[in-house]
C-alpha cells in the first residue's frame, strides 16, 4: 500500500513547498554546474542529479536509477535523509508527503534549468525509503 503524493496535490501547502523547492533547485544547479563539462544527453543529466546533486544536498547518492527509456525515470533512495529521523516502517506514513514535496520541486527546478521540463512525484511505502518519479515533458 503506497502512499501517493498525488492525494495531497490539491492541498495548497504541498504546492507551496513544491514551488519553493523548484526555486531552490534552479538556484542550486546554476551554482553547481558552472564548472562542469557539458552534458551528453538526458541520461547523463539524470546521472548527475542522482550522483553529484544528491550528494551535495543529502550527503548520499541515489541508490537506484531506473528508466523505461521513454522519458520516465525512477530515483530510489533507500534511506532518504528527511525521513530517517521520523520512522523506520509505516508509522507516520500519512505525513510523509509533506516532507517530500520540497524535494520533488528541487529535482524539477534543477532539471528545468538544465533544459528539461518534467513532472516529479514521490512515493513512499516504507520509511525511510522513497521513490521519486520523473516524467519528462517533451517540449
Amino acid at each position, binding site marked *: 500500500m503506497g502512499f501517493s503524493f498525488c492525494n495531497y496535490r490539491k492541498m495548497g501547502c504541498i504546492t*507551496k513547498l513544491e*514551488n*519553493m*523547492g523548484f*526555486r*531552490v533547485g534552479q*538556484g*542550486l544547479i546554476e*551554482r*553547481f554546474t558552472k564548472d*562542469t*563539462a557539458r552534458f551528453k544527453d538526458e541520461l*547523463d543529466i539524470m*546521472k*548527475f542529479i542522482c*550522483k*553529484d546533486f544528491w*550528494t*551535495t*544536498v543529502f550527503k548520499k547518492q541515489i541508490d537506484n536509477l531506473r528508466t523505461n527509456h521513454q522519458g520516465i525515470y525512477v530515483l530510489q533512495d533507500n534511506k532518504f535523509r528527511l525521513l530517517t529521523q521520523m520512522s523506520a516502517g509505516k508509522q507516520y506514513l500519512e505525513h510523509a508527503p509533506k516532507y517530500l514535496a520540497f524535494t520533488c520541486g528541487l529535482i524539477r527546478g534543477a532539471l528545468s534549468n538544465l533544459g528539461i521540463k518534467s513532472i516529479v512525484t514521490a512515493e513512499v511505502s516504507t520509511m525511510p525509503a522513497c521513490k521519486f518519479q520523473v516524467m519528462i515533458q517533451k517540449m
Partner: protein
Amino acid sequence: MARQSSRGGSESKKMSSELFTLTYGALVTQLCKDYENDEDVNKQLDKMGYNIGVRLVEDFLARSNVGRCHDFRETADVIAKVAFKMYLGITPSITNWSPAGDEFSLILENNPLVDFVELPDNHSSLIYSNLLCGVLRGALEMVQMAVDVRFLLDTLKGDGVTEIRMKFIRRIEDNLPVGEE
C-alpha cells in the same frame, strides 16, 4: 560515469550553506506572497525561528558540551563563538554592553542568510533575517532565559554591518523536579 566528482570538502561545505541560503530565500519569498504586509512576514519569521530555536538548543547542547552559563556575558560568548560558528560558520563580535551588563550587540560582518539577496524598494520594513531573532529567543527560553532580540542595523538596508541587539529580561523560574538542579 566519466564526470569528475572529486570535490573538495570546502566546496561541499559552501554548497550546503548555499542550499540553506537559497532555501531561506525561497521561504521569505513565499511568506511575502502569502501575507500582505511586511510586519506580518516579520512576525511569521520570528515565530518560525522560535520553533526552530526550541529544538535547535537540544542539538546544540548535545553537540557542544557547553554547560550552564553563570552570567549573561558567558551566554554572549557561547552564542557568538560556539553557536554561530557551529550553525552559520561565522563568529560575530560582541559589543556595546550596557552598564548593567544586561544588554549587548552581536555584530555580523557577513550574514550568510543574505548572500545573493537584494531588497526591493517596496519591502522597506521587511526584516529579512528576522528568523534569527526567533531562533535566539527560543533557544534561550529553553535554558531559562527570557531575552528580547531585535535587529538594529542591517547591511541589506544600507548599514555598514548587521547588528542584533540582545536584552536580558528575566530568568525563567520553572518548577524543577525535586533533587534536580
